[in-house]
């Protein structure tokens, strides 16, 4: 289905960019409520460990690559 491949390309690139630009926010979305917040950084902030951000950045690159691949197949 071409429409699904097109959607995969657009959403894949979009989510990949979000992962690269806002890795901390992506970590918080996936961890808030699963593990109690406020354990990292200092009191009063919701800092995210740098290694988790790097995992999200790598996922972002994979999503960009996947989105790019589907864009290529559609074109």
């Amino acid at each position, binding site marked *: 289905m071409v429409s699904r491949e097109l959607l995969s390309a657009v959403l894949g690139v979009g989510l990949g960019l979000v992962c690269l630009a806002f890795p901390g*926010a992506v970590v918080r979305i996936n961890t808030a*409520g699963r*593990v109690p917040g406020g354990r990292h950084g200092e009191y*009063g902030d919701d800092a995210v460990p740098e290694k988790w951000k790097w995992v999200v950045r790598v996922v972002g690159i994979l999503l960009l690559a996947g989105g790019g691949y589907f864009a290529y197949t559609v074109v």
Partner: protein
Amino acid sequence: MRNLGLKVRMVIVGSILFALYAVAAAAAIFVFGSGVLPIVLIGSVVLIGIQYKVGKWAALKSVGAEDMPEDRFREVHRSVEQLSRDMGIEKPRLMYADMGVPNAFAVGRKKAGIVVVSTELIQLLDHDELEGVLAHELAHIRNRDVVMMVLGQGVASVVAIVAQYIVLLTGDNDIADFFLAIIVGQIVQMLVMIFVMAISRYREYVADGDAADAIGRGEPLARALEKISAGNERASDSAVDEQVNALCIFGRPIGLAKLFSTHPPTEKRIDRLRN
């Protein structure tokens, strides 16, 4: 009525989350038939239960929290006993950990609460400031904030899982369907979490207000936040600062980072506590 603003907001956000959950359940029934309803309902309860139990265990394990001995931390125990009485809750279990930074957090629920305080926080703050922080954490337990976050994330997870399966099982089972299912699940979860994060930020203000009521004034907690915040700015070159989002401007999150913050800006909290 205590915390009327919070109750109104909880009704609104709770209704939105329930509506999203109902839409996900209805969509699952529409696509897979009515036989899927028990799986959705039982699965939701099991998922949320596991998230609560595992989350609590993981939080304590990750910081290496240990029980706070009464003879070594007598003042902290006395303060928490007094504050718990004033706030009408059972005294939670107290734990401490060497976290490397001044910090404290609460896990669990009203009758099974745990407050973890870092040794750095105890060393940094004066007694009344530490009482402000402890009262804030006790307010989180009294207001069931941890449980609320688990429920919010649980609803977001269930809605995301249903969306993923609908994408996956209505497609041709090719690689594009798998890729799309993962992305749709994440995007749906993000959309639901906007509401959960918004209520989480508001609950921080409510916990601050409750802490101020419990200790009679907001100034000690405001000073504690100020002290920790000032220490954070001074240590801008330290390893701790590496944890601050690279896209923050002067430590303030922007854009999506702001939308998906669990805590409001510290300056705003200090302002509210003082006014």
